[in-house]
């Protein structure tokens, strides 16, 4: 099991680099889809079937389709690099290093003492998640849905001006 976990972990990182480094927008989008699908496999290996499948349905199957659709509509070909700003050149690398260090530190702190332990599979089926969502976290859940509603209304209002 851990071997598969590391293989897909490496795939996530490689594809994530691909998202940033590709010059053609469609390739970036496809790399992002690979990241999402490989992450879903990681969830699956950790025993979270429901989260894995939902990850693919929502992110890879719905949101990224819209991304790809927009890229196709604009028919965006190879990107032309803009003239690099000087500030980015000076500050980019140190800021990146600082961010990486901070992330590593946070993760290191969070890890239990015996980090080699494979996490014991906990039941993460649809029913326990549903109970959590609608009992313990019902307020955040409802607030999030209102937020989505507001976003939809905003999109309609913006689109209405163009019609």
């Amino acid at each position, binding site marked *: 099991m851990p071997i598969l976990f590391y293989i897909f972990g490496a795939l996530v990182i490689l594809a994530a680099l691909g998202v940033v480094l590709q010059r053609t927008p469609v390739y970036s989008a496809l790399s992002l889809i690979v990241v999402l699908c490989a992450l879903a496999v990681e969830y699956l290996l950790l025993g979270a079937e*429901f989260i894995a499948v*939902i990850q693919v349905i929502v992110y890879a199957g*719905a949101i990224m389709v819209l991304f790809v659709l927009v890229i196709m509509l604009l028919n965006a070909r190879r990107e032309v690099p803009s003239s690099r700003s000087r500030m980015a050149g000076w500050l980019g690398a140190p800021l990146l290093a600082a961010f990486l260090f901070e992330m590593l530190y946070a993760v290191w702190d969070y890890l239990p003492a015996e980090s080699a332990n494979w996490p014991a599979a906990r039941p993460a089926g649809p029913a326990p998640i549903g109970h959590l969502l609608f009992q313990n976290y019902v307020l955040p859940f409802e607030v999030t849905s209102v937020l989505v509603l507001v976003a939809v209304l905003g999109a309609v209002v913006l689109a209405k001006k163009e019609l």
Partner: protein
Amino acid sequence: MTIFSDPTFFLLVTLAKVAVILFVLLTAIAYITWLERKVVAHIQSRWGPYRVGPHGLLQPMADGIKFLFKEDIMPLEADRLIYLLAPFLAFTLAFLSFAVVPFGGSFQIGSRTIFLQVTNLDVGLLFIFAVTSLGVYSIALAGWSSNSKYPLFGGLRSSAQMISYELSLGLAVIGVIMFSGTLNLRDMVMAQQGTWHLHGTDTYIPHWNIFVQPIGFLVYFTAAIAETNRVPFDLPEGETELVAGFHTEYSSLKFAMFFMSEYANMITVSCIATLLFFGGWSGPGLGMTAPGALALLSIFWFAAKVFLFLFFYIWMRGTLPRFRYDQLMSFGWKVLLPVGFLNILVTGFILTWWTSS
């Protein structure tokens, strides 16, 4: 049966299942194309294929050989990698869904029970939805990478169409999920065995979900036809406007892969319709005691139901004209989607009333 250790046995059985399913599916696909040509021909008072073999029965072989030997043409300005990737993606995803489809009961070898299904995932239904939701990429990318205007239009149309109808597809099955309380396809079928009992008397009506979710079924099947890009929703490949839509620039084996994945998707959709609404492999005679015969009989009932749906697909192709694009969109968003929501609402009320009384 102590020749093999448990993991080895499991691996061998799974490999055998995969091989059998692949063989059966590919044969089925070949003969659905034959059936389609025959049925449509008879609807239009023609004979259909008749020359190759008796009643044209060897026509699928002839078609396959023809595809193999055709010249493989790639447009010069095509995006090579994605152009090659798209048909493989379509093919793989079309066959992946069958990994979780239970096509029969179970039988025993020695002390081990073998289920007629490759994997029994707890979220089987969602797995199929995840795989089909990725299927849109193969069509969109094929259209884009061909670098030609008609395929691009076809790809754009189909992405828009598939996103729109996927919503209704998902909503339609929620009613069934609420009734059965599980996402496991095998458990869903098990819940539909037997007959409906009304106030303690046997009605002899099968305990299938279609009788409690007729609207859900109609919404599901309509949306499913749109998802598989078939008549009357075949706008992504509308010949009269777009030559052949997203696969205009594909030839030879790559075209054949798109062709076969379309038929594989039809089979998937028919399988889900059977599993969710028509009791899967349940049917008369399953009370028998001989376990081997039981497994065979369950496969027979399952195949028969799936065949009826496939026939319905072909029947519709011979009957209905194609939608106009704006009609397609307004139908999906203004009719199918609200009906799907209403169905969930009504189902919720009924279930609450049912459990409280």
